């Protein structure tokens, strides 16, 4: 309609852009996802190859595939036992764990931002990771004493489950505090997150007094966030929870898209908002809990990844969620590879690297959005 476009002359100069149709952003999103898939494979190979010992990774990949199909003792013919052990028992579990944790953190961030309708919501920022950390720390410190019976019952799942419960309680509290009449106040949310984070952090701090030396070291290193000590047992404890979450989350896409209109309007277009919120909170708490339990508090992945992707492919959750999983996995493997080479032979906790990159990024978003968020 001519009079409608005439009333907004400022778009006339770039009217080519105003003709963008629904399909273009979708095509872009698919291309970006394909690219990220390729990037993930490349990052994983790099993660296997790079380290104090250089390993001919491409030669080893077919052997690894065969080994997974039918495991055999010892190194395959023509492969150094040292290379085989380094790749199979040290680097591969670490790369796999990095991919799982990175995907879980990025997707948790994206879901939480959709749920709270704000690009700054993230399990790390609003204290959910701290709550999960308290749950995990309880079992790290008291697992052999006060909680020994629970520990023996749940085995390797005790710490992830405790972290899940800790994260769940914090998320529910946050939602109750930050949301009123279907509207989430960002200021309240962030402030409540600070308070809850401080409270759970203090409780975790109390545990220091009852921890022995080994537990103390575990606790401290783990608190900074690290994938060191990754092994197949840790992968086995976190993978089921994270994979279930990654599998379920695409079913929330349409609901989260609807939620951008607000809770009332989302229900008007047929979305069962309360059910959506319950499922989303449960999944985020579970995945955050599982990640925190195996790798501690790795921050900012959940903020940076979805934000970068929204700038590129737009906020449609059908593409944002899977793309976040892929990019999150890539970034965390890359950061971890960096963390174990930058001060080699020592290791830097990966949380330091993600914070160095992520915190300025977070400030940048804040500055860009200042005045828009009503903070």
């Amino acid at each position, binding site marked *: 309609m001519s009079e409608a476009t005439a009333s907004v002359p400022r778009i006339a100069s770039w009217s080519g852009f105003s003709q963008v149709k629904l399909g273009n952003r979708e095509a872009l999103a698919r291309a970006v996802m394909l690219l990220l898939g390729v990037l993930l494979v490349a990052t994983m190979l790099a993660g296997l190859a790079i380290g104090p010992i250089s390993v001919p990774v491409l030669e080893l990949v077919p052997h690894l595939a065969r080994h997974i199909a039918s495991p055999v003792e010892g190194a395959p013919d023509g492969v150094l036992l040292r290379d085989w052990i380094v790749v199979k028992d040290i680097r591969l579990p670490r790369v796999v764990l990095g991919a799982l944790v990175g995907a879980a953190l990025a997707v948790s961030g994206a879901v939480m931002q959709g749920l709270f309708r*704000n690009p700054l919501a993230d399990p790390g920022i609003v204290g959910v990771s701290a709550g999960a950390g308290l749950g995990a720390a309880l079992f790290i410190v008291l697992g052999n004493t006060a909680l020994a019976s629970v520990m023996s019952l749940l085995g390797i799942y005790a710490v992830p489950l405790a972290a899940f419960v800790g994260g769940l309680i914090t998320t529910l509290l946050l939602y109750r505090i930050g949301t009123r009449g279907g509207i989430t106040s960002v200021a309240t949310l962030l402030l409540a997150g600070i308070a809850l984070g401080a409270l759970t952090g203090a409780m975790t701090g109390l545990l220091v007094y009852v921890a022995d030396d080994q537990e103390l070291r575990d606790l401290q290193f783990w608190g900074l966030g690290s994938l060191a000590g990754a092994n197949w047992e840790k992968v086995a404890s976190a993978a089921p929870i994270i994979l279930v979450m990654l599998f379920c989350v695409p079913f929330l896409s349409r609901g989260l898209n609807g939620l951008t209109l607000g809770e009332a309007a989302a229900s008007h277009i047929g979305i069962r908002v309360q059910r959506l919120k319950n499922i989303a909170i449960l999944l985020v708490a579970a995945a955050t809990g599982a990640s925190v339990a195996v790798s501690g508090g790795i921050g900012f992945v959940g903020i940076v990844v979805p934000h970068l992707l929204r700038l590129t492919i737009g906020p449609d959750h059908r593409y944002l969620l899977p793309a976040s999983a892929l990019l999150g996995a890539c970034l965390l493997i890359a950061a971890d590879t960096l963390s174990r080479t930058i001060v080699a032979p020592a290791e830097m906790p990966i949380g330091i690297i993600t914070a160095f990159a992520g915190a300025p990024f977070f400030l940048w978003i804040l500055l860009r959005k200042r005045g828009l968020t009503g903070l």
Partner: protein
Amino acid sequence: MLHQKIDPSTNVDRNLCAENVSISIGKTPIVRDVSFEAASGELLAIIGPSGSGKTTLLRALTGELSYEGHAFLSGRELGGMSAEDQAVLRGVLPQISQISFPLTVSEVVALGLLDRRAGRLQRETRISEALAKVGLAGFEGRTYQDLSGGEQQRTQLARVLCQVWDPVPADGQPRWLFLDEPVSSLDIKHQYQIMHLAADYAARGGGVVAVMHDLNLTAEFANKVLVMKCGKQLAYGSNESVMCSGTLTTAYDFQLDLVEVRSGRKLFLHPAPVKI
């Protein structure tokens, strides 16, 4: 355009009925004992001063708030219908619509397309048609957050139209538009455009319930009018019976005269310069 006259009295199941509806928020009663019947094929306007319970009433009819009494849409009690079932039968235009992420106009409108079997071309065509209807043709790729208030409101209306596109689709059940102050942030030309659009939807057999502030637009376009005051129903009936200076003066506690202007149209005006 098909202007088919539908006799609402023949089939009560096609109507929106409220019987002694009362609504409380917390323990505060907001709306008390409201009864009306809106027929498909008609535009029902809900008017009254600010705080009289108009929006609250609409929020109860859209499943947002619980109510006492009975309210039926197409013969089914609203309180017992799922969000999905209600979404098939009616679209809701909210008063304020802020969007949390930078969606494009066409992505916002696409949220109203509930039929997920539709192909991409079909969806894009429908989105463009809806945008053209609200006077926003060519706005598909614009970012919603960059639009003016009035453009945002019309984008939302396009989304609502997509949700209940056919006033009476193949299943024979009329569809409904619930509009909360649909023209509040529009200029006068677009006010008329949107009111014509709503009236046309009703004329084609759909139902329209609109919360209105503009009495003259109400007098011009509504078939029936419900007047609210202090949470109660002050008057309800046909446009001609309700829209008179006596009822409106009582409703708003403000002197309103009916003035006939050139071409025979009637306008409600305050008789003297306002002294407050």
